[in-house]
């Protein structure tokens, strides 16, 4: 059974321009998240990503539909039950949202106090968490004395304090530079792999999905338009929005101006070959071209590694006799997809 299961969930807000009308921030979303997943949710600003995760820990209440967390229906819970639910779901934020008047130690201890953990046990747990996020020597610092990356690590430690099964990360790296982003994502990966915590990562950056997610849902206008294994979605995107996201990290088939530039620079006919995981055709493709006595040059594309599986597109400029090209083309088509740029 899924750890988090959303069925036909909607969330509407009154239209600020016309209070009698409603706007759907979440519009009929169904989604299953399995224990152990690092589930990425990607979408442009206003797609409804934040609203969606805030429904999971009930910071926002659903307008309709069902939300099961660990088998328990969240939408009908009372305030007291909700508080217990939240102890089992950690959350980190883009702006970190640390308590500025409290020390790092007190920030991390706060959820434990709320949970009623006795002092000695609390102190032990805080030390453990500080060590886990690598900030033991910053225990007495205040948040405004930390860098962005350090702040987010405190945020992570605080979110993990009560040993939750689920961690919600709302744009947790969007305020950080690429280097620090990498570090924090590494830490999240460790949280998932060493502690077995299921993570739901919201982002508008495909990079983040590529680096840590195992599954991904693409959101647009309050709907999930596509979801599945990251590899499947990356290698075979179905929707225009998904293709745009994928193209930010993966160079696919050249079109438009890019193609014109390539034509201008390279003589011959231009073909794009799809390379998929477990496919040894790459070497065979070059062999066939060589054997046909054709000249060729790699001019565009790349191979990506997602969760240890590779895929990509290679674009070649091929020169030589047209008949030879056609026969080589026929042989390659038997191995993998090859299309000529038009």
């Amino acid at each position, binding site marked *: 059974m899924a750890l988090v299961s959303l069925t036909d969930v909607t969330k509407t807000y009154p239209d600020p321009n016309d209070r009698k009308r409603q706007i759907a921030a979440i519009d009929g979303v169904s989604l299953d998240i399995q224990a152990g997943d690092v589930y990425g949710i990607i979408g442009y600003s206003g797609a409804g990503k934040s609203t969606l995760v805030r429904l999971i*820990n009930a*910071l926002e209440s659903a307008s309709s539909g069902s939300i099961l967390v660990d088998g328990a229906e969240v939408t009908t819970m009372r*305030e007291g039950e*909700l*508080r*217990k*639910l*939240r*102890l089992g*779901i*950690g*959350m980190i*934020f883009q*702006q970190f*949202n*640390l*308590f*500025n*008047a*409290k020390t790092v130690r007190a920030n991390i201890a*706060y*959820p434990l*106090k*709320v*949970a009623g953990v006795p002092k000695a046990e609390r102190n032990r747990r805080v030390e453990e968490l500080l060590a886990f996020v690598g900030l033991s020597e910053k225990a007495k610092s*205040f948040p405004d004395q930390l860098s962005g990356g350090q702040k987010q690590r405190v*945020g992570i430690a*605080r*979110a993990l*304090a*009560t040993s939750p099964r689920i961690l*919600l990360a709302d744009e947790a790296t969007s305020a950080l530079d690429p280097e620090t982003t990498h570090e924090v994502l590494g830490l999240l990966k460790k949280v998932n792999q060493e502690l077995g915590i299921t993570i739901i990562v919201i982002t508008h950056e495909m990079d983040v999905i590529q680096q840590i997610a195992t599954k991904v849902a693409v959101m647009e206008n309050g709907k999930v338009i596509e979801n599945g294994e990251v590899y499947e979605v990356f290698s075979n995107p179905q929707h225009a929005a998904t293709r745009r996201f994928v193209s930010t990290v993966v160079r696919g088939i050249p079109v438009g101006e890019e193609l014109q530039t390539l034509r201008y620079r390279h003589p011959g006919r231009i073909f794009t070959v799809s390379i998929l995981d477990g496919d040894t055709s790459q070497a065979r493709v070059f062999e066939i071209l060589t054997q046909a006595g054709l000249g060729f040059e790699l001019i565009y594309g790349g191979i990506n590694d997602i969760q240890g599986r590779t895929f990509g597109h290679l674009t070649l400029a091929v020169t030589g006799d047209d008949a030879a090209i056609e026969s080589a083309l026929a042989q390659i088509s038997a191995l993998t997809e090859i299309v000529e740029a038009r």
Partner: protein
Amino acid sequence: MDDINNIIANIPKLITASGETLYIVGFALLLGGFLGLVLGLILYVTRPGNLLQNRPVFTILNVIVNIFRPIPFLIFLVALQPLTRIVVGTGNGNTAMVFTMSMAAMFGISRVVEQNLLTVSPGVIEAARSVGASRLRVIFTVILGEALGPLILGYTFVLVVIVDMSALAGTIAGGGLGTFALENGYRQFKPELTYAALVIVIILVQLIQFLGNWLARKALRR
């Protein structure tokens, strides 16, 4: 020489007057400060969109504060006399003044409190909610703590205003340095006594400012 002798002769009176001022200001701060904190807190939490949003309560309190806060203190003091007599038993004397000033300070302080609480980031409140803290817990363990520095500065400002009110209130129906300056200095053409009272008030206000800034710095760690 006469001036100095006159001041020395009046030292006992000055001490009494200072004591009265401290009494009025101190208790007005305690009572008005507490009531203002409660009123400001209620305004803040019931504001639409906040933790315990309640439009009717917020609207009613908001209107009440808007009506009473801008009334000039002298008019407020006189107009409140009937209520003061009911509550304190008399409209005269230092205790009656403590009551009147507390009421006036309450309205001013409630706004100071509300404004400062509004500066606490909604994200921080959400973070506290997300770990399972109840609304009341969030208010008392997070919101008040996060706003503590600015709140201390706000109270310091109000305290100086209370000293100002106390001088005026004293001349109408009580004692204190204002009354001393008026009766012993101004009315008897002894400006040196007015200045003696003035110096004491300046020292008092400076002490308050210094203490307030120091506490706020500690709270803000800056």
